[in-house]
Structures are given as C-alpha cells and as structure tokens.
C-alpha cells in the first residue's frame, strides 16, 4: 500500500504501470483493479479557471489518508492500494488525484475505490484556491456530493 503527496505534475498511467510492474507478489492474484483519476478542469461554478493552488496540512493530510485506506482495507478484501494526490500549484488538465485498488473480485475494487475517494473528499485536509481567467482568486468553498448526479 502506497500513499504519496506530489508537488510536481505526474502521469497517472505511468504511475499505474510502474506500480503494477513492481507489485510482483500480487501478480496472478488480482482479477480487478478499480481506479479513479481526478483532473483539474478549466471551468468551475460558471467561471473559466486559469490555475489552482492546493494547500494541505503537512502531517495531518498523510495521517488522514492513511486512516481512510486502513478503513477500506478492513472493510474489503484488498490486495493493494495506490493513492497519489497533488499539492501546490496546478494547471488545467493536470492530474489532481489517483486512487487505485487491486482485489481478487470486482465488487471490492469498485466499492473500495469509491469509498476512498468519498472519504478523501470529505476528510483529507486539502483546500483548493482557484485563479480565474479574470485574475480573481477565490477559495473553493465545498466539495460536491459524489453520490448525486450533477449537472
């Protein structure tokens, strides 16, 4: 199980390829991988967004992510978990978060990857500050509910 905060741009597909190449102990054991990739959009709440700063609470962020992944591992049968979250200055189209869960069967991979994302969204101390095309800077106030369909 690996949890990382990244201050630089990262390629989720490269991370997945490298992680899986190294995870030789679970080769042949996993039948399912559930993955979520969050990417910065160039549009939010009706405004064009030029860039974003991701603040976090060093120490607490890692601790809370660890709690969330531990909880997922106690609730489902998971073979491995990879979680990478960006911090610092990001641009539209940059990857913000990667969550990947390997399990024998797909129910566990689907449930656990979603559980980790929802809990990360509500509990992990990260905060987004957007810079709009207009130059205006604003804090994102609240994450949306991932279980509801959104327009």
């Amino acid at each position, binding site marked *: 199980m690996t949890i990382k905060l990244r201050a630089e741009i990262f390629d989720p597909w490269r991370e997945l390829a490298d992680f899986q190449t190294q995870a030789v102990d679970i080769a042949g054991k996993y039948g399912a991988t559930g993955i979520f990739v969050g990417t910065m959009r160039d549009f939010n709440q009706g405004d064009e967004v030029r860039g974003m700063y991701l603040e976090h*609470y060093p120490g607490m962020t890692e601790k809370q992510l660890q709690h969330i992944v531990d909880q997922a591992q106690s609730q489902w049968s998971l073979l491995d978990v990879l979680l990478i979250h960006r911090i610092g200055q990001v641009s539209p189209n940059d990857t913000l978060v990667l969550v990947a869960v390997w399990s024998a069967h797909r129910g566990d991979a689907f449930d656990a990857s979603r559980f980790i994302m929802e809990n990360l969204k509500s509990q992990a101390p990260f905060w*987004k500050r957007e810079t709009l095309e207009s130059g205006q800077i604003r804090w994102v106030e609240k994450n949306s509910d991932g279980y509801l369909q959104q327009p």
Partner: protein
Amino acid sequence: MSIKVLYFASLKDRVGRSCDELTIEAPLTVLEVWQRVNPNMDMPDTILAAINMEYVSLEAEVSDGDDVAFFPPVTGG
C-alpha cells in the same frame, strides 16, 4: 501550559495569520481556545478542528504541548 494554534486556507486569510502561540493556566476546550485567541471573531459555523492532526469536536479538551488546528471544509480530490 503552552499550546500552538494553526489556521489553514480561507480561515488563515480571515484571521490574518497562520498560527498563534498560547499559554494557559487551566485546561480549555477547543472552543475556548478559539475564543481566547480570536476574542473579536465568532467561530464560523462550518469550521473543522483537530488536535495533534486528529479531528476532534469543539468540546474536546486541549493538553499541554498540543497543536490545535482550525480550518474550513476540505476541498481536495
């Protein structure tokens, strides 16, 4: 007793500083810590609080050497 108070994100902008150092004589709750360091500002309704990097309620008691953190709803992911 000496405790450290930390602020993050929009709350840091609102209080105008990122941390306070506080010396207290008797134990205080998290809410009382806020009132002590921000006497002229009501605590925002949506605030989250942590002691030593674990979430706590506003009634939790603060001990000597603790880090108390206040921050707005999180928006990662």
